[in-house]
Structures are given as C-alpha cells and as structure tokens.
C-alpha cells in the first residue's frame, strides 16, 4: 500500500492509539497538515509551540499515555525547547514531531531552517532526523517506544518536507521497533534483596521517600502495603504527591526545601531511608554533607545513572519499583514502630501552632486560605495543575492529594508558564475530571494566550490566579537573602477577570476570604471555563524554608504567632 510520508505520519499515530495532538502549522509541516484532514486524530491548535509541548506533557502526566506535539521547522521547533526540557527533567513521555526544510536544503541556512536535532540532543531521550518517507514509520514507532519505556522522557522526530511529500510502500509490521541491543535486566539479585530486607527489618527509625517513580510505575498499592506492613512513615517529593494518600496516617507530607519541619527532621534523624523512585534532588536533600547522616540508604530506581549520583547509597535496587516492591513485600516483617511514629507526631504540634490555617482570620486573604478552600470545595478530587513559584509550594502544602496524577507540576525544570497549557493537555487526557489551574500572576502571563485555545476547544478548565503583585518566590529570596532589594520583582498584571471576559471566559476577582467560597462555587457550577483572580497578601512567604544548600534540618520556620507578641524565645 503506497502512501505519502505525511499520510504515514497520521496512519502511524492512529495505529499507536493517538486520539489528540497539540500543534501549530507552518511551511515545513504543511504536507502533514494537509493529510491530517483524512484522518481521525483530533488536532488542537495551540497559540505557541511551547504551549503545545506543555499540553502534550500535561496529557501524558494526567492520563499515563504518550503526549504528542507538532510544530513546523525553525522557530516552531525552537519554541518547543522549553517544553521538551520540562518533560525531560520530569521523565514525562512526549513525542514531538517537527517539520524540517527539504533534505537538499539542510545546512544551507534555508528559510526557517534550524538544527533542531542538534539543539534538543541533550534534552531528549533520543531524537531522529528523518529524510526519507520509508523511514518515518519505523522512527515514529521507535520514538513512542522509547518515550514510554524504562524511565520515560521526550523524543523528537524531525521530518523533512520532501520526506513528507514523497511516497513509499507502507508496511506497519516491518516498522516494528527493532531490538538493537540487550537491555540490562532491571532486576536485582536475590542477595541484594535480602540485604535490603535485613536493613528494613532491623531499622528502628525508617522513612520511605516516595517519588515520581511510584506514579510512573503504578506502585501505589504496593507502596501502601509496604508502608502499612512495616509501619514505616512516608515522606513525598513534590512529584511524588498523590502517589501515597495524603490522608493516610503514615503519610508525613512533602519533604525538602518547603517541606514541613517534622518531615525533614524525621528524615535527618532516621536510621534508614527507603528511596522509592526518587533522585535525591538538591531541593529535597539540602546540604549533601549533612543529609540524613545516621541513615542507611536503599535506593529503588529504574535508571542506573541515578545511583550514587547525589547521595551514596548502601543498597541500590535497579529496576521497576512495582516489581521490586512485590518481591520485597513477603520478606518485610510486621514491626511495631510506635515509638518512632509517636516521636514524629510530637514534632507536628509546634508546626500546627504556627500554621496560618490555625490562626484567627486577620481580614487578609492568604494564598494558603485559597488553596485550602479549593481543596475543601473539590473534596481533594480535582486534577490540579500548578505553575512555578510560591503558589506551587502552597498548593503542595495545603491541597492534600489522595490519588496519583492529580497534581501536575513542573518540578525539575521549574518552568513558569507551564500550568495553563499543561492543564489543557490534562483535560484532554481526563475529560471527566475537574481540572484546576493554580498559577501565579507572573507565570500566568507567560502563556496566557492559551486561554484562546481553551475557548476554541470548548473545554471547561477552571483557573485560580494567586495574584500578589510580585514574582513572589524571587521576591521571597530577595527578602531573605538580598536584604529586601526587590529588583524587578514587582509586576503589573492586567485585570485578569476582564481579560478572561475578553476571551469569552467567565472572570471573577476576589479580595477577601469570605468571597473565596462563593467564587469557587460559581466557577465550579459554570459548565464552561472560569477564571478567578485572587488578590492575596502581597509579601507573604512560603514557610518553612530550607535555604538553598543549607542543612535540611536548618529551616527558616514559620513566624510563630508568639513572636509577634514578643514572648517567643
């Protein structure tokens, strides 16, 4: 069966189960767009190719499949770079298809030519330059396989215009991904499992560090069984939130730079850390020299390159987390760790006293209140897509995620502007889910043209802007570490409510806590999209905070209410 390269692209996407792609047309990808009309795949017209990649990313994270973004050559392709790097750092499986100038023009500085495979080499799991129609099917099939297998990540397929235009015989079966090498059997030997079990069963003060790997490997049930059987408390990384239910008695909450004091203290004082699919990022360890000094470490991780990268571990178990936990579980002894759990519990009291949620309403609107009310209003069931900055940390602290894939956020790269487009992708992956964007006034302005995409696609996304008139997290660092010199952090925003209305989206502004609940209800009752601009306390900071590079236990604590009365020590 003879087909053009452009037809083969869509034929492959259909056969790979792709229902929706996020893209933007242009010269070098025009043949593919022309052929699109003959296929069933739904195309979402984005407003910027960066948005397209974040949508593909959000789609992948919310649904567990592979997200697809399409762009033309040159600027279309380079606009994808931030989204690709975001997916790379957070191990998100996306496939980016870019048009390329004709193969004879490559290297000639032709109009809209750029070396996108060269540019994306260090930020993709793999990429392809395809110059012949007969190579398209194999490249795409392999790209999907690579994106989703092992430690997932982005793959880019750059296809020249002549490859799209020319015809060849299409043979799906012949294009199956080749086994080019033996993959290491990612499974530890029995003696390693036994050594791990010995450490686990002997430990007095163990802590599980639950990472993104729990969600990626689908090990939620196994992690919970493990934790419950051995009575081991669970601290989560930012991307691990939702992998273990927040309401579970053994859940401690988020660890690291903005983790609660009791979580970080428990880690520092533990005698065994069980790292489940996490990579000891600097945001969770603080100063490596003083990190969990008395703890043995067991690292369960699918990527061998992560072992001993930041933290020296005692037992590395390389492989799929779920499989390894299944093998460990029978050997885990039911152990009473009541004293350790009670000790951690005793650490919480002090934090609770300092928590804004437990202070009397001062009449000011705090971001923490907004997040708390959103959590209550949605019963913790919404898919929340956050941007990057203070609001992201407050969301992680005050929205309690019970289920996997309900928090979607740019953790590794920290990409501002991620939330709105990623939420669009998430909504396509989970059309029945209530999807909320929680973004700051700064990050939202980076990608807000995608509001038009929401309207064009008629999807009901709800947006909460935590508006404090500052690039808040940077302002906080300036306050703490640069003597309060607010260099270029005050930021003017449009009237977001009016802006939303201009796009045809319901817009609301909220300035007091009393208005929060009704506004959330109005947004939730609206069958279409809605945006709420929450004007919150301007110079509020995220507490607690471990300054970058400081010891994990040396946190800047929440100001105690007693401090304000001058009676705290």
């Amino acid at each position, binding site marked *: 069966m003879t087909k053009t390269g452009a037809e083969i692209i869509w034929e492959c996407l259909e056969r790979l189960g792709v229902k929706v792609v996020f893209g933007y047309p242009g010269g070098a990808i025009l043949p593919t767009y022309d052929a699109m009309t003959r296929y069933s795949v739904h195309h979402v017209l984005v407003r910027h190719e960066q948005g397209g990649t974040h949508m593909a990313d959000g789609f992948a994270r919310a649904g567990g499949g592979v997200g697809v973004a399409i762009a033309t050559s040159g600027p279309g392709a380079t606009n994808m770079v931030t989204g690709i790097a975001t997916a790379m750092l957070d191990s998100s499986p996306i496939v980016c298809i870019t048009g390329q100038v004709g193969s004879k023009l490559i290297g000639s500085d032709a109009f809209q030519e750029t070396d996108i495979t060269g540019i994306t080499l260090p930020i993709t799991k793999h990429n392809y330059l395809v110059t012949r129609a007969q190579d398209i099917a194999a490249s795409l099939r392999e790209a999907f396989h690579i994106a989703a297998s092992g430690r997932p990540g982005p793959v880019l397929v750059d296809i020249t215009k002549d490859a799209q235009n020319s015809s060849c015989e299409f043979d799906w079966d012949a294009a199956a991904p080749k086994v*080019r090498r033996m*993959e290491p*059997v990612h499974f530890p030997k029995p*003696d390693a499992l036994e050594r791990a079990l010995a450490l686990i069963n002997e430990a007095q003060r163990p802590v599980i560090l639950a990472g993104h790997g729990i969600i990626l490997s689908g090990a939620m049930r196994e992690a919970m069984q493990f934790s419950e059987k051995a009575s081991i408390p669970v601290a989560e990384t930012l991307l691990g939130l939702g992998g273990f239910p927040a309401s579970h008695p053994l859940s401690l909450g988020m660890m690291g730079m903005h983790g609660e004091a009791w979580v970080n203290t428990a880690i520092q004082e533990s005698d065994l850390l069980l790292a489940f699919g996490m990579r000891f990022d600097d945001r969770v360890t603080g100063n490596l020299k003083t990190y969990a000094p008395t703890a043995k470490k067991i690292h369960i991780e699918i990527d061998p390159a992560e072992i001993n990268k930041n933290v020296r571990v005692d037992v590395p178990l390389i492989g799929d987390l779920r499989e390894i936990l299944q093998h460990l579980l029978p050997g885990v002894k039911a152990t009473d760790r009541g004293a350790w759990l009670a000790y951690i519990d005793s650490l919480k009291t002090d934090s609770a006293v300092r928590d804004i949620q437990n202070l009397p309403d001062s009449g000011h609107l705090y971001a923490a209140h907004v997040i708390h009310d959103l959590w209550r209003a949605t019963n913790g069931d919404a898919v929340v897509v956050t941007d990057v900055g203070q609001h992201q940390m407050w969301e992680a602290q005050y929205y309690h995620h019970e289920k996997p894939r309900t928090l979607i956020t740019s953790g590794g790269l920290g990409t501002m502007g991620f939330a709105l487009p990623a939420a669009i992708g998430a909504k396509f992956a989970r059309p029945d889910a209530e999807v909320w964007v929680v973004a700051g006034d700064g990050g939202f302005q980076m990608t807000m043209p995608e509001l038009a995409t929401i309207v064009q696609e008629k999807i009901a996304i709800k947006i909460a802007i935590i508006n404090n008139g500052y690039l808040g997290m940077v302002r906080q660092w300036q306050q703490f570490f640069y003597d309060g010199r607010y260099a270029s952090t005050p930021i003017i925003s449009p009237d977001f409510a009016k802006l939303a209305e201009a796009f045809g989206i319901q817009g609301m502004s909220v300035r007091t806590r009393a208005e929060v609940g009704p506004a959330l209800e109005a947004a939730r009752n609206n069958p279409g999209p809605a945006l709420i601009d929450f004007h919150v306390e301007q110079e509020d900071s995220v507490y607690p905070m471990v300054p970058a590079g400081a010891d994990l236990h040396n946190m800047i604590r929440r100001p105690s209410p007693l401090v304000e009365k001058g009676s705290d020590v």
Partner: protein
Amino acid sequence: MSDNEKLHTFVLYVENQPGVLNRVASLFRRRAYNIESLAVGHTERPGISRMTIVAGISEGAAHRVEANLYKLVNVLSVEDVTHVTTIGRSVALVKVEAPDEARHRLMEIARVFRARVVDLAPNSMIIEITGTEEKIRALEDLLRPFGILEMVRTGQVVMTRGVKRARARQGESLSADPGDSDVSHSV
C-alpha cells in the same frame, strides 16, 4: 583534569550512523570532562563501529558516565576497561629535522624503538611508530632535541586480553557501583 580525576578508558560499540559521535561526545561535554583521546572505526560486524575514548574522570563519576553512555539509544555496549588488563596502541607520525650529520643517530633511535622511517627528504624524515602511550612519549622526548617539525597521533585503541571480547555479553558489567554485583543483566 582536577586532582581526583584520572584517565579512564571506555570501549563502546555503537551504531554506525550520522550524529552518534556527537551524542557520545556531548555527554562528556555536558559534564565538562575533557576527552584526551578518541578512536573510532569499523568492527568485524557490519554497521557497528567501535569507539575507544580516554577521558579524565573521577572514579565515582566514571560509573555514571558509563551508565549515561548506555542510556544513549545508539550505543550498543559500554565498558570501562580502566581496571582491566588491556593492550593499548596508538600510531604517531613524527617529522623531524634531519640534516646529514643527524640522520644516523635518528635511524638508530628509530631502530631501538622498532619505529620505521617512512619518508626521507633532504633535511627531514618522517618516523612512524606504533605503541603504547609511554613508548610514543619516550620517542618524542628523544626526538625533540633534533627539532620536531610536525607530529600527528591517532587516538588510542584498546583491546582486552584473552578470549573475552569487550562486553561480549552486552550489559554485563553495567553495574551501579564498582565491584557491586547486586545488579544482574541479561545475556
């Protein structure tokens, strides 16, 4: 090379395709490891090339470099042969000033080193030598007083001694830790 870095030798089998060298080199570039020597050539297997890379890397990082190299899709196998008994050779051509009165001594030196004179011109000669890094360096030191006009060297090629082919069992020695046998791999 900083203090805790030492020269590590990696042997890679890679697909013979455009861009593969760039992917491999980029991995070293990203971490600011200087490649001291690089040799690439065809192997006994069609479509597969073999690379020998020598780079200054700390001991701990070498295992991660190995693991990261193996993550490259076009890399079929990787082995850090630094601590394995190997035969290592490179080739050098040295063009040295050779007036009549010096020629005899130069040829004497070449003979001792089992090097060959491959070009003789009125005032210069080219000496070809094959050998270990040390041997080539020793010859270079001896020739320098005569006046080296030009010198070119290939990268080092390395082969492990005995029957075993480097990473004949692919994935075998890709372990997380030196001497750590906790990781098993398929054949």
